[in-house]
């Protein structure tokens, strides 16, 4: 029991939880935007990889950290545009297109990495984002040290939660996005473009997903590894359901998840001798499955999710 208490009362633990949660926050926000508009984006896993690779490579080639962020977002937006073209314009299967985008984005990233750096044996490093102190906040007891260890990239994620929530609930644009994911006919009948809204949401959402990947190579670590995304994208898709497609709950879900993951890492240090490490590594995936199963029945899916829309379509 002492051990548990030690873990939960340590600022380091919470700092780690927030760090683990950050890429998920980006991913869940991105998936949420897409799905609110009625489009499932299973390209997320590959877009994470693309964001991680593109952001890192841009910095490695001298673009600067914020340049890297921009490049990563652009890479994500590009794959989002492709997904939107296939699913919104052509009305093709969102499942298949998403899987295809994941395969394409992943292989394109790996190919580019290998082609740009054919001869490296160990992954080259960059100087990533550094933790920053926020005047005032960092001096808070307990919370201060937990937040003090975060980089600007994490603060960007938190700011985006507020921004996405504001846009969704406080602007006519958000109203239209929520409407188009529920009943596209309502949007068309009011003279707005169903396609325009959906394409926009998918492109922006995909850019956010790519930032989640970029966080991994530019803040959490300092290099690009094969397989480093490791299912984080899929976990985000489960978390969106868990979060009922609400940005606030998405933040909460990601933080809960981060806390659990940070906890299992520390637990592993404590009891790793008796329990194989893989048991701990399985936990995030099993937890996501459990979360999905628990909320699935009462989940309030956007009604038009997965439904293609053609102009002038009647029910």
């Amino acid at each position, binding site marked *: 029991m002492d051990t548990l208490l030690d873990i939960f009362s340590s600022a380091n633990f919470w700092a780690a939880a927030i760090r683990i949660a950050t890429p998920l926050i980006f991913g869940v926000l991105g998936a949420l935007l897409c799905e609110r508009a009625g489009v499932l984006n*299973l390209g997320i896993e590959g877009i994470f990889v693309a964001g991680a690779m593109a952001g890192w490579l841009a910095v490695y080639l001298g673009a600067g950290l914020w340049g890297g962020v921009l490049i990563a977002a652009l890479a994500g937006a590009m794959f989002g545009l*492709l997904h939107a073209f*296939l699913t919104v314009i*052509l*009305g*093709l*299967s969102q*499942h*298949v*297109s998403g*899987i*295809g*985008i994941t*395969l*394409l984005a*992943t*292989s*394109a990233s*790996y*190919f580019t990495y*290998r*082609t740009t750096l*054919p001869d490296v044996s160990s992954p080259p490093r960059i100087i990533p984002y550094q933790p920053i102190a926020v005047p005032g906040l960092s001096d808070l007891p307990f919370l201060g040290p937990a937040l003090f260890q975060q980089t600007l990239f994490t603060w960007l994620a938190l700011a985006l939660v507020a921004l996405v929530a504001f846009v969704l609930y406080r602007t006519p644009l958000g109203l239209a996005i929520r409407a188009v994911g529920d009943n596209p006919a309502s949007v068309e009948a009011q003279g707005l473009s169903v396609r325009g809204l959906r394409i926009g949401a998918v492109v922006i959402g995909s850019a956010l997903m790519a930032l989640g990947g970029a966080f991994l190579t530019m803040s959490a670590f300092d290099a690009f590894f094969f397989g480093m995304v*490791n*299912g984080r994208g*899929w*976990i985000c*898709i*489960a978390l969106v*359901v868990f979060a009922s497609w609400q940005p606030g709950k998405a933040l909460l879900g990601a933080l809960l998840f981060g806390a659990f993951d940070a906890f299992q890492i520390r637990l592993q240090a404590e009891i790793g001798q008796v329990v*194989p490490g*893989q*048991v701990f*590594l*399985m936990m995030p*995936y*099993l937890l*996501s*499955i459990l979360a*999905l*199963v628990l909320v*699935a*029945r009462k*989940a309030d899916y956007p009604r038009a999710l997965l439904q293609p829309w053609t102009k002038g379509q009647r029910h």
Partner: protein
Amino acid sequence: MSLRLDPREHAPLPLRLLVSLLAGLVALLLVAIPVMAAGANPLDAYVLMAQGAFGSMFALSETLNRATPLILTGLAAAVAFRARLWNIGAEGQLYMGALAAVLVGSGFLQLPGPLAIPAIMLAGFLAGGLMMVIPAMLKLRFGADEVVITLLLNFVVILFIQMLIEGPLKDPLAMGWPQSVPLVAEARFDKLIPRLRMHWGLVIGLVAALILWLMVKRTVLGFEIKAVGENKAAARFAGIPVDATMLKVALISGGLAGLAGVGEVAGVKGYLSADLSPGFGYSGIVVAMLAGLSPIGSVLAAIFIAAVFVGADSMSRATGISNYLADLVVALSLLCVLVGSFFLRFRLRWQSRQEV
């Protein structure tokens, strides 16, 4: 003049074949861009790929060897997608099938020789099937989305396998490598031709494709799967047992992926390791889509995808271009065939607009 779309009443077989062929072709043509970006001549690369895949008896054997698991994972995806059951977990099911083969066939159980192969196949089928029946039941019982669950289970399974082959199943004679104890000799598949790696798993894949084709065309189960996949509400209203049909599909689909794992263990490696499959489960999705979910088509599509992988490996050795080029071709094939399916649904027509 303006372009307009007319819905097609019917997409004839030659058109569907053409779309699949073109999808593969366009994907191959598109990778000329990354090949040039890598500083090579695309034409040379294509020739090297073709030689590497089909240029010799050895190359052909390698291609068919590679196609063997892809036929089975392709069939796994095809049968599930027909019922609109999104099984993206063939990778995990493949490993579970391989694990079951090792558990049954490595001497823990004393099996009479002739029974060894049927036993590992049955075990592999059931283990893979169970791995898909679980998410299918979660879908039916709790409404949980099977896409995400099967995807996540892939990661769980591979960790589970790693745990076992570094632990209780670890081969003490493998000089520290994390791999399982080997299958007994009676449980190994014979080679089809001496000194070539092609093995009887290929025949199993072909037979499975034939059985599935028969099921789709001629059986009540095939009829019911189609009805459930195309319109669940109407199928239920007409008295088709929708849930039971979904579970049967899950068992068959997961089982086929499990058989792919059995084949890799019994026909190629002889033991289980965590690098048994370089993504055969995911490539199976591409195979199924390229095949238009047709069982016979899956065989052809699997050979195509296998040729791309084997050819790209060989080309990569000769030119230094990364063999991730093969993954690019596979991904592009999927997207191209998806676009192609649009042209199966609609006909493009130029139409002159009348004066207003």
